[in-house]
């Protein structure tokens, strides 16, 4: 392992990276940085170029243009083997040898990484994914969720500086998906840099420090809350027991309230710049107007709202 070298700069630096297959653009002018210990989400619809990006950074595919460094090494043909020693990739389908047992699968990969303490590493990886008691089971007998966990154990064997997880919960039931989320949380605690591609937005919101939204090109990058604030104005939602007789008098006079609208009877949405300042003002105004207030809360836009907004904008722009 060459962790000390890898930790001198960002774990991943990608600049103007483009991959074309003939006339088809897989991804274009992609750029981002990922810091050490960060969980970075790579979101996008099917065909957006997520898996091709992972394969490129995993040295399986050569980019058409652009530059990148992975785990501190420049992404150039001569560095392929050195990069692959420092990283791990868990593809969407775990690709296990089904006739071999779990331990035999891991032993093969421990050999491919030339690990010196193979038995201990295998035991540790199995423990990390709670599969110690299934070590001697043939992989063909495992459920899809368990196979995914074996794939994750395999990816942890070499103690990677950067771990690429390509749709790790694809096709899993909610319970199995939650188990994988817990494993990723655990890896985050251990300081592993994780590059997570997914189109499960709740998953990205829950797990990722920052996300990039990709649709062939990067549409936006930031923390989920940053993206929300960048795209959507902040709002307060006020519910009263009965509709206000004159809501304009109640809401319009406050400098902290930029605008308001009636969403449905007795539900008002106020556009505000600072909810923490506006909320007390609005409550006071409602009390003064003798309104029976049921709730007042800041509206939360999910990452899904951000994603749909950006991807829809991109689709519309491409049709124009």
């Amino acid at each position, binding site marked *: 392992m060459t962790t000390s070298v890898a930790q001198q700069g960002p774990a991943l630096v990608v600049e103007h990276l483009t991959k*074309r*297959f*003939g*006339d*088809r653009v897989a991804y274009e002018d992609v750029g981002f940085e990922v810091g050490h210990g960060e969980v970075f989400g790579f979101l996008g619809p099917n065909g957006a170029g997520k898996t091709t990006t992972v*394969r490129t950074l*995993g*040295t*399986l*595919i*050569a980019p*058409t243009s652009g530059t990148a460094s992975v785990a501190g090494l420049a992404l150039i043909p001569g560095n392929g*083997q*050195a990069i*692959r*020693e420092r*990283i*791990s*990739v868990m*593809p969407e*389908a*775990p*690709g*296990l*040898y*089904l*006739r*071999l047992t779990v331990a*035999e699968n891991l*032993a*093969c*990969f*421990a*050999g*491919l*990484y*030339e690990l010196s303490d193979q038995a201990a590493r295998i035991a540790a990886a199995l423990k990390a994914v709670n599969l110690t008691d299934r070590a001697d089971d043939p992989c063909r007998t495992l459920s899809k969720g368990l196979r995914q966990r074996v*794939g994750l154990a*395999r990816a942890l064997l070499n103690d990677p500086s950067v771990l690429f997880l390509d749709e790790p919960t694809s096709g899993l039931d909610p319970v199995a998906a939650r188990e994988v989320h817990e494993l990723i949380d655990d890896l985050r605690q251990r300081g592993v840099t994780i590059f997570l591609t997914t189109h499960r937005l709740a998953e990205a919101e829950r797990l990722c420090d920052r996300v990039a939204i990709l649709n062939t090109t990067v549409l936006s990058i930031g923390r989920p809350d940053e993206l929300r604030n960048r795209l959507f104005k902040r709002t307060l939602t006020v519910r009263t027991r009965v509709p206000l007789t004159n809501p304009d008098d109640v809401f319009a006079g406050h400098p902290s309230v930029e605008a308001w609208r009636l969403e449905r009877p007795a539900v008002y949405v106020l556009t505000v710049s600072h909810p923490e300042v506006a909320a007390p003002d609005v409550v006071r105004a409602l009390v003064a107007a003798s309104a029976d207030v049921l709730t007042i809360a800041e509206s939360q836009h999910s990452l899904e709202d951000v994603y749909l907004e950006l991807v829809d904008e991109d689709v519309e722009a491409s049709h124009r």
Partner: protein
Amino acid sequence: MSVGAIRIGAIVRKELRDYRRNRFVILTMSITPIIFIIAPVIQILTISAATTSTRLDQRIGISLLYMLLIPAIVPASLAAYSVVGEREQGTLEPVLITPIRSEEFLLGKALAVLLPTLGISYAIFGIFLACTALFAHAAVVSAVFEGSHLLTQLLFTPLLAGWSIWVGIAISTRSSDVRVAQQLGTLASLPPLGIAALVSFNVLTPSLWLALAVAAGLLIVDGLGWRAVAVMFDRERLITGRRPDQPTTVPDRAAPTQDVSHTGEPQMSATLIVRREGKFGIELRRGRFDITVDGTSIGGIDNHETVETNLEPGHHSLRLNSGRYTSRNRVFDVAGGEVLNFRCHGASIWPTYVASIVKPDLAIALKRT
């Protein structure tokens, strides 16, 4: 170039474990040798004491040739499965993401096939010798146990296996279909047996020097085979099915429907019809073909499909391709209103299919009808 013994060992161990639990492999590796020992043993045991020396040599030659078929045929199918099989099962990508080098991966695969092949081949030869020593006439025993025969078997067994293995793996790295790869691998394993046959039948006088010369030749070919296959082993192509920066099948584009002459006057267009129908309905080179007219892709064509497009009167070229495999470039002139028919199909006989690996424009037949 240094290779990592640990990584090669990991591949070999994995493969051997996998073989042991794979019924198909066990059947292939056990039934073929059993079949190939029955005929030679019968040949040897039915030789009478009065047989002439020429006839004796001939029958022993045939028997020993059977012994050499085992190392040539047994590994061919397994070697041809080695890469394309992993690709089909989805197990190739996780391996290629590890630090293993192409040369190490291929050597591991080759050794995993070679070891059981040698074990089986020598075991069967041992059984053959034992049967001869126990049950054959003294003259037959003396002829079979002749030094040159034993040397031929001992030397050629690993070398023929090496040839079959590298040819099989080469086919496997370039194939997208396990069955086709295995059939081709078996076929391609046979040519070196020609020399062995000539020696066994005493057409070439068996001698130590001849055996050593041919063995050295095969050894060089085996060594070069490893390097050549490593060069052919393209990670990007294996993962994506495309060569790096090669044009790919683009979404079908509407062919131009109205043609305009250089003077701006609308002109009656010509019609180009491409029909894809294999001889006897068989195609060894399958998959969708891209149709390129005048250097521009106009879409793709699948088997039993017909594609029709309009062309401006004048000089044109037509070519089909599937990745690196192409048809010949057909150049033609067409007048307004003319209808041109072309028929195409993927290579449908083995020799053409094999030749297209070296000469890619033999892969797709394209003829004007």
